[in-house]
């Protein structure tokens, strides 16, 4: 087990390193550095541009820039200054200016809250839905559930968000359109919208997995032994069915995280997603790089956890 964990850990570190290199390289390749025009988009005089670039160390060779950047990041956890919003450093933008006094205002935590709640919702509804679907296979309940899940995976979440806003805010006036933190009702739509896609995938996978498990020999044996059906399900069939679901959680979380960008955009939630999108539109490279690094690190850590859990649940995988 220990070597398995160590192996996964090393792999994670390598991936993070690779992502940082690739991201950095891409930022270097992107046209128009952060100082070729000012924050308003007007072009700058060359001398001013040269001076700014020297100030921020952008005239150094790329490799040196990379090393400086990573050094600052690893030792001081400093992502550097924002290149479009001149008065703010990236850390201030992403983590909130008053992190310690008002943690819930911090964009990172807002996004984390959104992500966590939608994840819990998706699992809480998706897994039971899949199980029920499998137990009542090919009956109306199953067909209905599968249709809804197909909708769930087909509709992109920002589109779903728009439709929800249209129905629940503009027509029915039940829920507020945007905002976060003042009213619990603001959280309903974003969380539900974000959860839908993942829920659909989890439900489908659980259904397929339960169906497969129920046909397995050991379940037959358990039934033949005379165990009560409920016991057979909870002790034998269910835990084993959940293993494939855990495997898919890794890549699923990636899609989830990126889903938060758009939900935050559509519902005007002050999380990092919103900053990322505006950074992309404004070409604020240090902010872009920082958000990508942050997301990637979170992703890699989540994948690591999922991998380890999977190794824990299914001993066969450890001897890979």
């Amino acid at each position, binding site marked *: 087990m220990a070597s398995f964990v160590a192996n996964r850990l090393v792999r994670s570190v390598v991936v993070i390193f690779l992502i940082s290199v690739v991201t950095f390289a891409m930022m270097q390749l*992107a046209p128009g550095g952060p100082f070729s025009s000012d924050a308003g988009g007007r072009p700058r005089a060359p001398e001013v541009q040269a001076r700014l670039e020297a100030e921020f160390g952008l005239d150094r060779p790329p490799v040196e820039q990379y090393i400086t950047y990573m050094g600052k990041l690893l030792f001081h956890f400093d992502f550097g200054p924002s290149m479009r919003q001149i008065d703010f450093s990236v850390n201030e933008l992403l983590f909130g200016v008053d992190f310690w006094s008002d943690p819930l205002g911090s964009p990172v935590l807002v996004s984390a809250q959104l992500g966590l709640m939608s994840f819990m919702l998706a699992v809480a509804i998706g897994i039971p839905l899949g199980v029920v679907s499998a137990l009542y296979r090919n009956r109306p309940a199953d067909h209905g559930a599968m249709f809804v899940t197909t909708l769930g995976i087909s509709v992109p979440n920002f589109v779903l968000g*728009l439709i929800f*806003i249209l129905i629940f805010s503009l027509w029915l006036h039940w829920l507020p359109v945007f905002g976060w933190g003042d009213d619990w009702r603001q959280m309903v739509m974003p969380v539900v919208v974000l959860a839908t896609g993942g829920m659909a995938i989890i439900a489908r996978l659980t259904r397929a997995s339960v169906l497969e498990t129920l046909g397995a020999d050991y379940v037959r044996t358990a039934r033949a032994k005379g165990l009560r059906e409920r016991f057979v399900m909870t002790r034998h069939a269910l835990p084993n069915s959940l293993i494939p679901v855990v495997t898919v959680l890794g890549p699923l979380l990636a899609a989830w995280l990126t889903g938060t*960008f758009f939900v935050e955009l559509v519902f005007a939630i002050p999380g990092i997603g919103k900053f990322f*999108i505006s950074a992309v539109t404004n070409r604020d490279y240090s902010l872009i790089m920082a958000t990508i690094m942050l997301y990637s690190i979170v992703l890699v850590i989540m994948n690591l956890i999922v991998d380890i859990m999977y190794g824990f649940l299914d001993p066969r995988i450890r001897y890979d």
Partner: protein
Amino acid sequence: MAVEARRVVGPAVRSREDQDILDRPRYSLLNDTIKRLRKNRVAMFAGFYIIAITLAAAAAPLVTPYGRDEPHFDHTREPPSSQFWFGTDKLGRDVFTRIIYGGRVSLGVAYVGSITAMLIGVSYGAIAGFFRGHTDDLMMRFVDLMYGFPTLLFIIMLMLIIPPNSSTGMIMLGLFIGLGLVSWLNVARLVRGQFLSLREKEFVEAAVAVGASPFRTITRHLLPNAFGPVLIWLTLQIPALILLESTLSFIGLGVKPPTPSWGGMLSEGWRAMRTSPWLALAPALAIIITMLMFNFFGDGLRDATDPTMRGRD
């Protein structure tokens, strides 16, 4: 005198059993698949929709009542009517027309991107699956590593490299390549898995014994047999790419106005949600319904080729 060679077909009078065997309907794999697919009405409907919308997008000038960028300044921001089926936008352009033209971008990018990903992935998986051993090991490790990359972020970065004022063609080229680059992993794994199991079969051994080169074995024998799952993957990858393109256009990284694309129209429409919701609803429905149809068709295809469901009805 030359003797004509004649194929011997058997005795002139056949036994009852033989005749019955000859009269029985043919039941090959392809036949069976098509038959089962036909029975699935949802999948057939989805298939027709897909063909219809692809043709409509390709032949857009023939199908649309107005010009793509044709403004009607006396009819701006109108809701759907008999004159403008999906309403008009802020410049008085017909939304229905723009949706069909937008399909050119959205569908085109999805199709070409999927095919690019297929070309990359199938070659990669074929090589890994056929040669096995260290080659396979190394290649799959690379794939595992790539799985850790967040794809949306990667493609956003890729699109950022393209200068903001490039032509539509350049942007679409970037999209073709970029979308292909982020999607090939799954099909590579798929093909590799298929090859690993197929190469143990006798026909491969026979081909190699007769002296077929690896290239010939792969292309003539293994690939055709591995193609079923790849086709299913393709039908499910296309909607994923439609989604990806819409997402990119939504945040401004896709084709630039006035070229319409479903994601771009969605972002414009979103800003006008309160006053003119049809501007957002039309592209939203276009995206949803198209993706849904592709997913239904892919599901139907998968069910039709699933060996465990053969002869069920």
